[in-house]
């Protein structure tokens, strides 16, 4: 039980938010404010072709006419979009050719965050240990992508979005914005105009990606936002598992993170997308600071028998507004959503999923576990719909909420739309607090109250943790414990 011991040690030795440091590094910024020039500046910085700039500018025009949505159960003062910087990058000239050229401060940052950027480090240790390739995004740029060569041998393209726009324009043009249209929503539209970096993955037909791919997002600069854009395409019969992690320094100001993630699964392809989101949640006492995490994530199961699974562990952010969804277009395609959302302090989360059944025989499964503590608010909001052609569509949804303390709140808002006579939808939801009997039993066996809570919570979220890749599951388990620290007593 190394993992358990590790967890206990980690928890014991932790500050409230361990990733809250700032990296002192020379950075380059776009001028403050947002107008056509800012959009052009970003595009120029990234050395983008003309079509990309035109695409961005059109998005900007559309966004200027849109209004910030207000339907979610979150509240925050209006955001001044002119009072932020939309591009921040470490000064590294034309981008490092190898790790040796990367600013040592940056390397130290990632070391501190526990992200292996050196391939040999990943390989160190026991043979057969799981390996994963990393794309590290620092504010607006990708600083390094590892294992590119080995992946290229398998035919897999794994690079930063900026690089993909330059090197693989045909693929980017074919798929970008086809899952999340430019004007899909206010934040997606903003992202389309000013997106900086993110990952691009293309897995060719029949290829099983030889290792886990991962991206690590880090916001560092003050007064800036992060607008990453990720596009993953699994061609016919391909398989890829992708992990995403995020952290940010502790600051009194709120920073905006408005990302767009698009997944395309063609015939018989499978994409597994896992997120461990640990943005700075703001001060638990005053609610000051923290990240606004307004993210649009959507998968298009375009091909028959394709399969997409979203797994998320949401512990950070002052406000989370996020609904990873699946459009089940292909016949017999499958969508899955496994989520743990934990709010503590003054955090607000409004998260869930949409399963849109368009094709015949499509199936989906939603398991959502929400935990609220402190003075936080946690909402599950979801949609399951079957269109008239989706004969034989099936959905199973289970959302459970756990309340710890008298000042937090938990909400469940599922929408169900069945438009044909051959679909079967089942939905169940419960809201409870930790069972006193179970707590009593655990404490009787010698556990402290905090340990007992951790044990019960771990049991509560186990269904979802099991869906995470191994390395992430251990980390997620730690996070769950850390996020709930101080919620008892």
């Amino acid at each position, binding site marked *: 039980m190394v993992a358990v011991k590790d967890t206990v040690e980690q928890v014991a030795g932790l500050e409230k938010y361990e990733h809250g440091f700032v990296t002192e590094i020379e950075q380059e910024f776009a001028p403050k404010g947002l107008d056509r020039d800012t959009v052009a500046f970003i595009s120029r910085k990234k050395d983008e072709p003309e079509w990309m700039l035109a695409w961005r500018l059109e998005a900007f025009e559309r966004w200027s006419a849109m209004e910030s949505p207000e*339907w979610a159960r979150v509240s925050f003062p209006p955001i001044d979009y002119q009072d932020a910087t939309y591009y921040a990058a470490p000064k590294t000239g034309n981008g490092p050719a190898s790790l040796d050229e990367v600013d040592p401060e940056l390397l130290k940052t990632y070391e501190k965050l526990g992200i292996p950027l050196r391939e040999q480090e990943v390989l160190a240790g026991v043979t057969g240990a799981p390996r994963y390739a990393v794309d590290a995004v620092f504010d607006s740029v990708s600083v390094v992508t590892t294992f590119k060569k080995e992946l290229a041998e398998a035919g897999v393209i794994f690079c930063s979005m900026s690089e993909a726009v330059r090197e693989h324009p045909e693929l980017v043009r074919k798929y970008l914005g086809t899952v999340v249209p430019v004007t899909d929503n206010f934040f997606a539209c903003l992202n389309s105009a000013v997106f900086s970096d993110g990952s691009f993955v293309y897995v060719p037909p029949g290829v099983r990606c030889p290792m886990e791919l991962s991206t690590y997002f880090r916001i560092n600069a003050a007064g800036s936002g992060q607008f990453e854009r990720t596009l993953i395409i699994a061609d016919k019969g391909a398989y890829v598992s992708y992990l995403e992690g995020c952290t940010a320094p502790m600051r009194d100001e709120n920073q905006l993170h408005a990302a767009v993630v698009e997944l395309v699964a063609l015939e018989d392809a499978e994409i597994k997308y896992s997120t461990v989101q640990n943005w700075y949640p703001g001060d638990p006492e005053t609610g000051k600071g923290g990240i606004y995490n307004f993210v649009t994530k959507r998968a298009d199961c375009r091909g028959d028998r394709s399969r997409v699974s979203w797994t998320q562990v949401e512990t950070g952010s002052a406000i989370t507004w996020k609904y990873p969804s699946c459009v089940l277009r292909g016949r017999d395609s499958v969508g899955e959503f496994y989520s743990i959302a934990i709010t503590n302090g003054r955090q607000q989360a409004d998260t869930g999923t949409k399963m849109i059944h368009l094709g015949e025989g499509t199936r989906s499964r939603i398991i959502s576990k929400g935990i609220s503590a402190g003075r936080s608010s946690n909402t599950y909001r979801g949609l399951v719909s079957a269109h008239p052609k989706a004969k034989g569509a099936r959905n199973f949804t289970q959302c459970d909420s756990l*309340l710890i303390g*008298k000042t937090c709140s938990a909400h469940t808002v599922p929408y169900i*739309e069945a438009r044909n*006579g051959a679909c*079967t939808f089942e*939905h169940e939801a419960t*809201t409870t607090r930790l069972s006193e009997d179970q707590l009593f039993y655990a404490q009787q066996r010698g556990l402290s109250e905090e340990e007992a809570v951790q044990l019960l919570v771990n049991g509560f979220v186990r269904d979802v943790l099991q869906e995470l890749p191994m390395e992430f599951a251990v980390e997620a388990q730690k996070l769950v414990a850390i996020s709930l620290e101080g919620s008892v007593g």
Partner: protein
Amino acid sequence: MNLDEAIRLRDPTRLPSRRDEDWRWTDLRGLLRTLPEPSQPLPTDAIGPGPFDGLAGEVLIVANGSGPEEIRIGEGETRTLVLRHISRGDGAHTSRLRIDVGPSARLTLLESHEGGGAGLSLLGVDLQLGADSACERLVVADMDPDAVAVVELDARLAAGAGLSQTLLTTGARRQRFETRVRHPGQGAQVRLDGVYVLRERRHADLTSSVRHEGPGGRTDQLARGMVDDQARAVFQGRIIVQEGADGTDARMAHNALILSDRAEVDARPELEIYADDVACAHGATVGALDDEVLFYMRQRGLPEGEARSLLVASFLGEVIDRVGSPEAAERMRSWLQARIGAGD
């Protein structure tokens, strides 16, 4: 958005529309481009029999919006009332009835909604339940296919009071039953049930919200229905547990059968919880009749139509089993059986 104002001012822009989140599946603005003229008075002497005839001495009639405006049930009294809402013609009208049930009183309200013509109606009941009183409201709605109707109940309970409601409806062109309950906890109990049987192009919307304001309250909700042809059913249930309403026990279930490829069921069971010592749960299912069960019944010699109607009747009948008043339950059961039919 306010239906009452829309009708009074004849202003269609005030009608609720799909842009109003709570009306997204029951759009009235998209349906009615103009508002009808006010309804003509309806003489009550030529009105035929109603579904609850003979079960109560007192029959109150609200005809095209006009009828009694206030009813009081004195402390400790036990009464059964028949309340018939009858609408004819293609006009628009509203009515609002206030019912006060005194402490420890018992009221059985047998309510029917009949006719409707091609008009628009907004019928509301304000119900005040005194301490330890009880009210069972049983509603049967058999409206014309072209009617557009919204029926509201605003109920406010005192400690120890009980409210039980069972709605049966066959829908209309667009029809909504909206029940809003303020629940004080403190031993008060609420049961909100409903059944819809919808065919052709009919629509019915069962919307409810129960706000638990004090500790120790119970709410139990069961809605079931079937949709056939191109009918559309909507279920929206919201349970709110306010801060301090500890010990609340709230359960909600909605189960729908879709019997045709062009029918639709939309559901939104919501929980909004601000207290931690609660047990709240909801379940929602949508599906077709089980083929294997049908096969089994046919194997035993039942014609398919009969097997189907038996299955539907037993599925919906479970809601009637919860009705407290036996005579009314019997009446409702045969009413429902006639609407389900013997199958085809």
